[in-house]
């Protein structure tokens, strides 16, 4: 009897040691973008079924207040293995927590425009990867433009003014703006910013240091404000109450011909309201030079690998598989339905806005994503200043002064 007990204890201890040896790796994912929760869960399931069923993957997502929650986690030492930030300037903010992916196999498939968005302030390293690429431009209703007899979409501001007249003659509201959302302004403004200077990262840095000013760039001082005036004059009724939802409903119900400051992310909502919608997508007219009217492409969100991760190898295996395996590569278009951040074929019946975006960048080239070089802190102050201008409570000169000051105050290195 006693022997039996001893044997039992010995076996139990052995099993115990075995368990310790076989302890599975754990990957904690805490990222924003809950709209991709289902595709990401599918990706994780596939990885566990097909590649590695030993690894435990905990996926958590939230939208509201993500940065605040992430800060709490970082400060309490509970750093997720994968976490998210915006790309560009915020890459530097979390750099001490992030692993440099530049030596990883996933670099082979990652698009150069995405890599560029993940570099630090000096342009070195790749401190993250993207779940989606993105396009920014002007969404318009092809049928309404045809109805107004406009054959070619306006590429210069004077062509735009003619188009507005033709649309209004048909009783169509030209614009819907979403000007109550601060981020609509940054999406619009960046098209003028990239037209002002080729190296937009350097231009932004000059603004932050107070070395650049609007008065040096007519495209910012005159064209941008002129365009905003056009939108205010020929847009929504209560312009400062117009939100993203206003834009979607006005455009999808055919009441407005052009949507300001949005991109591929609204197509699902538009198609839900009207599946027959014939959507066009192109660059904004920013000057009298048709060549400067380009769409913008790049990645605005970054997923970061924690450099302090206890299971760094397991995490890297997972993200490399995501970017290089056959399933992983097709996941972007087939499962998630996003603008792929990698080099891959696009299915023919894919989203109209993305197809138009690809077509536009093949024809006229695409401009770099400028918004990622400023923080959202600045952008919300920028949006507020523009709202004050749109509401008629500040002149153009006052608004420009506020923007230049805020740029130095908030984003400048003090």
């Amino acid at each position, binding site marked *: 009897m006693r022997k039996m007990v001893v044997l039992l204890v010995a076996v139990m201890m052995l099993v115990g040691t075995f368990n310790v040896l076989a302890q599975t790796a754990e990957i904690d994912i805490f990222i924003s973008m809950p709209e991709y929760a289902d595709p990401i869960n599918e990706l994780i399931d596939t990885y566990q079924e097909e590649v590695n069923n030993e690894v435990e993957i905990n996926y958590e997502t939230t939208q509201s*207040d993500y*940065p605040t929650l992430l800060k709490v986690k970082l400060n309490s030492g509970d750093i997720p293995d994968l976490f998210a930030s915006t790309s560009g300037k915020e890459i530097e*903010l979390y750099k001490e927590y992030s692993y440099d992916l530049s030596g990883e196999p996933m670099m082979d498939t990652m698009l150069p425009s995405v890599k560029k968005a993940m570099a630090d302030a000096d342009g070195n390293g790749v401190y993250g990867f993207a779940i989606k690429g993105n396009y920014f431009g002007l969404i318009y209703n092809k049928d309404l433009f045809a109805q107004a007899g406009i054959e070619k979409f306006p590429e210069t501001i004077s062509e735009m003014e003619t188009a507005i007249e033709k649309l209004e003659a048909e009783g169509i509201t030209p614009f819907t703006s979403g000007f109550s959302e601060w981020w609509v302004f940054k999406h619009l403004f960046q098209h003028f910013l990239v037209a002002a200077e080729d190296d937009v990262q350097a231009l932004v840095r000059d603004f932050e240091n107070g070395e650049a000013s609007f008065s040096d760039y007519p495209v910012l001082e005159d064209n941008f404000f002129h365009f905003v005036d056009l939108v205010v004059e020929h847009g929504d009724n*209560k312009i400062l109450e117009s939100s993203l939802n206003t834009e979607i409903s006005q455009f999808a119900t055919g009441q407005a011909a052009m949507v300001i400051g949005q991109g591929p992310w609204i197509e699902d909502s538009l198609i839900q309201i009207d599946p027959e919608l014939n959507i066009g997508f192109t660059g904004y007219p920013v000057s009298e030079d048709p060549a400067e009217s380009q769409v913008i492409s790049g990645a605005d969100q970054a997923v970061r690998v924690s450099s302090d991760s206890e299971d760094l190898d397991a995490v890297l295996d997972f993200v490399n598989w995501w970017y290089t395996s056959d399933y992983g590569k097709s996941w972007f278009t087939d499962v998630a339905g996003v603008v792929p951040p990698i080099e891959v074929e696009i299915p023919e019946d894919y989203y109209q806005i993305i197809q138009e975006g690809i077509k536009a960048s093949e024809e006229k080239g695409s401009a770099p994503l400028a918004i990622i070089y400023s923080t959202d802190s600045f952008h919300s*102050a920028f949006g507020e200043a523009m709202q004050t201008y749109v509401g008629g409570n500040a002149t153009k000169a006052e608004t420009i002064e506020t923007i230049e000051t805020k740029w130095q105050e908030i984003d400048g290195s003090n």
Partner: protein
Amino acid sequence: MIFENKKEKYLFTLPAIFMVSITIYLPFLISSYYSLTEWNGIDREAKFIGLENFKTIFFENNQFFDVLIFTGNYTALFMLFSNLFALIIALVLVQKLKTAKLLRGIFFVPYIMSMIIVGFIWKFIFSQGFARLYEITELGLLNLSWLGNSELAFYSVVLVGVWQQLGFYIVLYIAGLQAIPGDLLEAATVDGANIFQKFFKITLPLLGPSITVCMFMSLTRGLKVFDIILALTQGGPGGSTYSATLDIYREAFQYNNYGLGSAKAIIFFIIVLILTQIVLKISRRNEVEL
């Protein structure tokens, strides 16, 4: 006395003191420290910079004063309207109305709804609701941009704040009114006092304790206003409806100036402390006892 032993009394308060300390006093002390540092909320180390943050707030940037003025205006209007309307409605609801109980319930419903939900409901009313009503009635008032115009947005926020909180103060005033002895009012009627004399000479003075409580509650709630603005305007349009608490939140968590945000919070705390003490003193002085 339940506790004969003094030691026992202190012993039983210990858990409460402990919990309050770690959830209120300790964080307060920690933010006091952060108000003396420059920290973005992310770096592992906060940099000690002394009173630099307070200097920035007082001398370099007048934006915090605009926010305080907004909060002051909001609080003043909020206190005035919520107490005035609550008292009037309470006076009606203590009369022998058939529907009094039902009406009390109806007025109390907004109070049990979450502020954020109330905010979204009103956002809908101000935009789509008013637009449709304008189509039917053609009243110019309904076609104004209630949330899109920086002056109107202020009144919209006050209106929704009062509408949501009113039920709470009505209940307090009803309780106060019911506690007033009926024989006093009857005696006054016999003496030939009219309805206004009865209200101003008897009811109002005897309502003192209720008024003190309501004034105090509406003052602190007015000063702390946050969620209703977040849901309705998010501080917009053009930053014209930022309250002090919303501005502190924005500074610390959106602009990543944790130190500066903490400094603002400390200043705001001191202002609230002084204001509440003054209001409490004044209304206590005006109370009468039978």
